[in-house]
């Protein structure tokens, strides 16, 4: 069920830019179609003019071949078209760059090479909950995403929900998004950030308000970790040095928080469906799947240990 939803979120057709799912993306869709129509219109004008210039009978061409054509078609016509577009574009820019409102849900997303650190904030901006590589939002509510980076420049882009906005070290940009329908929406890094930039994706999951409340309550709880072989392997292998599992001794902060990793839709920052098989594969040799990522490969783990650890992590729902 989960993987299916994730798969759908990555569908390329209809093109996500032209398939908006919220009030911050819908006007961009209208604008895109408007611009495509404008481009087609101008192209037709140019093609017709050129065809006449090349093939029309001499008297017609003579009439076309003067400075009047430049004044009318080369200057006047574009001035009119561009003026209309400019007014449209600027008013839309203003409307869509409104400051965050008090009722907005606050989420801080920090770009990391090459994954996303997600923190849910309270109204005062205090961090309530940390997660990674997916953002859960309630349907119909505006979410103000505070975009930051601690390493290089990244760019946050969920085409079906909004345009993109950069994450720049030393600055904080705020992007507002809102989903009008429950579902998963794929996103990815749009600014080249070195190495594995191509494989730095994520998902936004929009829940009906009551589902969101349920998800939030569960996410805020520490991990329901039963003592198991997998937990022991996890601890012995030193995974806790980089990863946090709330409720256990694992408290590293270099890598993604794994408290509820079993319930995630994807692994490796939006690039693999999440199940025991992909989990084992990722742990054993993430470098083959996502070259250059900061997690070392663990070829030393036996098949048994690997399966146990994957089962343990998958149990962290």
């Amino acid at each position, binding site marked *: 069920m989960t993987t299916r939803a994730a798969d759908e979120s*990555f*569908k390329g*057709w209809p*093109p996500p*830019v*032209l398939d908006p799912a919220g009030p911050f993306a819908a006007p*961009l869709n209208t604008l*895109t179609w408007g*611009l495509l129509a404008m*481009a087609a219109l*101008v192209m037709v004008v*140019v093609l017709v003019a*050129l065809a006449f*210039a*090349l093939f*029309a009978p001499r008297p017609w061409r*003579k009439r*076309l*071949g*003067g400075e009047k*054509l*430049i004044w009318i*078609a*080369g*200057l006047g016509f*574009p*001035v009119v078209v*561009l003026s209309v*577009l*400019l007014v*449209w*574009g*600027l008013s*839309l820019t*203003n409307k869509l*760059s409104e400051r965050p409102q008090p009722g907005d849900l606050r989420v801080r997303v920090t770009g990391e090479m090459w994954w996303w650190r997600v923190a849910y904030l309270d109204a005062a901006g205090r961090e309530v909950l940390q997660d990674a590589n997916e953002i859960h939002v309630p349907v119909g509510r505006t979410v103000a995403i505070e975009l930051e980076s601690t*390493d*290089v*420049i990244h*760019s946050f*882009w969920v085409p079906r929900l909004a*345009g*993109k*906005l*950069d994450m*720049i*070290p*030393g600055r904080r*940009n705020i992007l507002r998004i809102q989903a009008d329908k429950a579902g998963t929406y794929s996103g*990815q*890094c*749009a600014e*080249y950030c*070195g*190495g594995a*930039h*191509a*494989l730095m994706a994520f998902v936004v999951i929009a829940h009906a308000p009551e589902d969101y409340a349920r998800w939030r309550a569960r996410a805020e709880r520490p991990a329901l970790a039963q003592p198991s072989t997998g937990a022991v392997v996890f601890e012995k292998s030193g995974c806790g040095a980089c990863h946090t599992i709330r409720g256990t001794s694992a408290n590293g902060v270099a890598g993604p928080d794994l408290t509820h990793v079993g319930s995630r839709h994807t692994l490796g920052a939006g*690039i693999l469906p999440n199940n025991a098989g992909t989990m084992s594969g990722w742990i054993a040799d993430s470098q083959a799947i996502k*070259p250059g990522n900061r997690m070392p490969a663990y070829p030393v783990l036996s098949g048994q240990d690997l399966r146990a650890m994957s089962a343990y992590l998958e149990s962290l729902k």
Partner: protein
Amino acid sequence: MSEGSETGFDRSIYDRFPTKGRRPKGELEQLREIWCGPKGWQWITAINNNFVGVYYVGAAMLFFVLAGVLALVMRAQLALPLNGVLPQETYNQVFTMHGTVMMFLFAVPAVEALGVLLLPQMLGARDLPFPRLSAYAFWAYLIGGLAFFCSLFFGLAPDGGWFMYPPLTSTTYSPGINADFWLLGIGFIEISAIAGAIEIIVGVLKTRAPGMSLDKLPIFAWAMLVFAGMIIIAFPSVILATTLLELERALNWPFFDATRGGDPMLWQHLFWFFGHPEVYIIFLPAAGAMSTMIPAVARTPLVGHWMVVLAFLATGFISFGVWAHHMFTTGLPGASVGVFSAASMAVSLPAGVQVFAWIATVASGKMRFNTPGLFVLGSLLIFVMGGLTGVMAAMVPFDWQAHDTYFIVAHLHYVLIGGMVFPLFAAIYYWTPMVSSRPLSERLGRWTFWLMFAGMHLAFLPMHLSGLMGMPRRVWTYAPGRDLELPNLISTVGAFLFAAGVLIWIIDMVRNFRPFGSDAGNVYDGPGLEWLPAELYSVRSIPVVKSLYPLWDQKTLARDVEAGRYFLPGAPTGGRETLVTSPVQAEPQHLLPMPKPSGWHVWAAVFTAGFFLLLTVQAYAASIVSAVLATYCVIRWCWFLDHPLPQKEVDVGAGLMLKTYASGPSSTGWWAMVITLVVAGMVLAMSVFSYVFLWSRSQASWSAPIGAETLAVAAMNLVAVLCAWLASRVLAKPPRLTVMLTVAAGALVAGAWWIDLKTWQGAGLSPDLNAQGAIVHAMAAWQGFFVAVGAIMAVYVVLRWLFGYVGPDRPATIQLVGLFHAYVAAQGLVTLGVPRLFAAVPA
């Protein structure tokens, strides 16, 4: 004085031409002998534009092919999802090199090369005013470019994208020397581009055929003039940016490091202040070539000549107000976004004017569908499509979606291929008969065109869609199951089709391109002076120009020129020379003696390249040796300059006597120095911008030491200006006085610089402490570089004095050194004043 004359020249003298009677025997043979090219391996010492221009275009096309091969490798990798042709690390290097090589080693050099090759011919000059400078620029570019490209074979190629954004390119995230290859390699090639631009500006303004006033200036020369002016304004910004980033990498000066008060956005502003005009820098010469070829191919004058000239100027002007449209997704404040969006749309207006001027010209004439004709028509269509997606991207909200996706990849390739590559291919087909004894094949040309045209659309049209489908740029692969397979596969097929067209062109070149001998003549019935019968000395005599299309309007012109019935039918001084004319009316002013082939500029290029490359691989001692050798070569090269000829005046035709020595504003050297100082001033202006930008981001206010030293530094710089000015005024006195004043000016600026630097260090500001420390020391380093060059110039003047080369008969060297010293002193005042000014204002 003649009515309306610019220089007091009596224009009735033009009526003496064409002259009557036969030219003396042996005159033509002497001309041939003087201008003949070097033989054998010495071809590398050639400086005549007939040679260097061809080498230059050839090298640019070599880089076009090399970067094109990189594109094919990338398209092979992207043909299928999760393909394994290129590993991630290599792909990142390859796409960085593709963009960098295409922009810096192909596009700009290619159009500059076209200028070097065509301008002297179009303007009726024997050569460009500084042949060794353009040869130097060429060799520096070729050696530096090849070394830079080869970094790819050692896995040392830069991988930060052609835009090289920090902090990704800082030492923390790019510890290897890959990024240094980019910063030093490209920084160096920019210098060669600027050298070429100086050459082109002075060439267009000062070495035109008599009578070719600005209203008769060929449209291509107008484009090149605006192009070169834009290089002068835009390139200093990227030179500063690369210098700052290299300083941050090598010495840990935090310009872009947010943890120490720097700001990565500073790089983006500096880079795009260059980077966007760069697109028009590439486009304008190609548009100039279009506006030259379309009238020729349609056999009718360009409709709206003046509108097109104004469109060039408007493009140049507006293009400096659009740089932030590359930064719409960085969270710029709303008001500035609006201004940049409006400017980005406005810049399409001059393009519209040009496109419809071309269409109107086609309509008023009768288009011929030969190979250049096909390429100009193809260019027009492709360029309009790229322009329209450009207008789309100028709309800020749309750009939020399209930015950094394949939609933009499609857009920029439509603009650059339509706006530059197709015009360049048209130009190659059109002007080959001017330089080659055989024209290129029409049959193969058609194949080339259709393959390139179809391949272009097949490759790039689907990319609009893959962009809207969410495919970001600069990705080495993509996941299956997102419907991206089909558009990517089509793009790959298109890319190979395009390459097949280029391959056929290469075959055509190998079969038919035969330069440096006789030429095929005016195959396309072109109207410009470049189609006059010519040999290595260019035209036999330099005509009086009476209209925009002289060969169409004066049917006997070619015959009279060839018979030596115009200016300079021989070589009156016995050496290479060309006419220098006034900038507006092109009235003859004096004769410019020109150098013969020599090795010094080639060695200077080798050692300059050596300096930068050795610096990149951190062989510091060797790089300093190379720098010293380069300086020595440049001094040797200059040593031959500024020697008056025994003949003070010579007859340049029909009894018109012109001086053979010039100094001050009528001379070419003075213009070159002033333009060089404008370049330096632009770097200074951009560093002041950087200071203010970083200051505005600082939390605490930046202080600056103010005291007696401040006054002393200001006073020393002011006295230095006075000394520099007096030095050339007292030339009539014993030369010792001039030399002393020159040395005093150099010493004063050096002393002022030293005291200012010590004051900062006394105030406890170290360069790695914070952004202010970094930018203050960067400005000091810039000033220090000029102080050092000023010192070398002062020593040079002393040396010339010891050889007896300083005197009232040769004021040029002293004037130019004085100009330089005065500039350095003024720059010292700015670097002194700016931090003090902003210390008084809280950020």
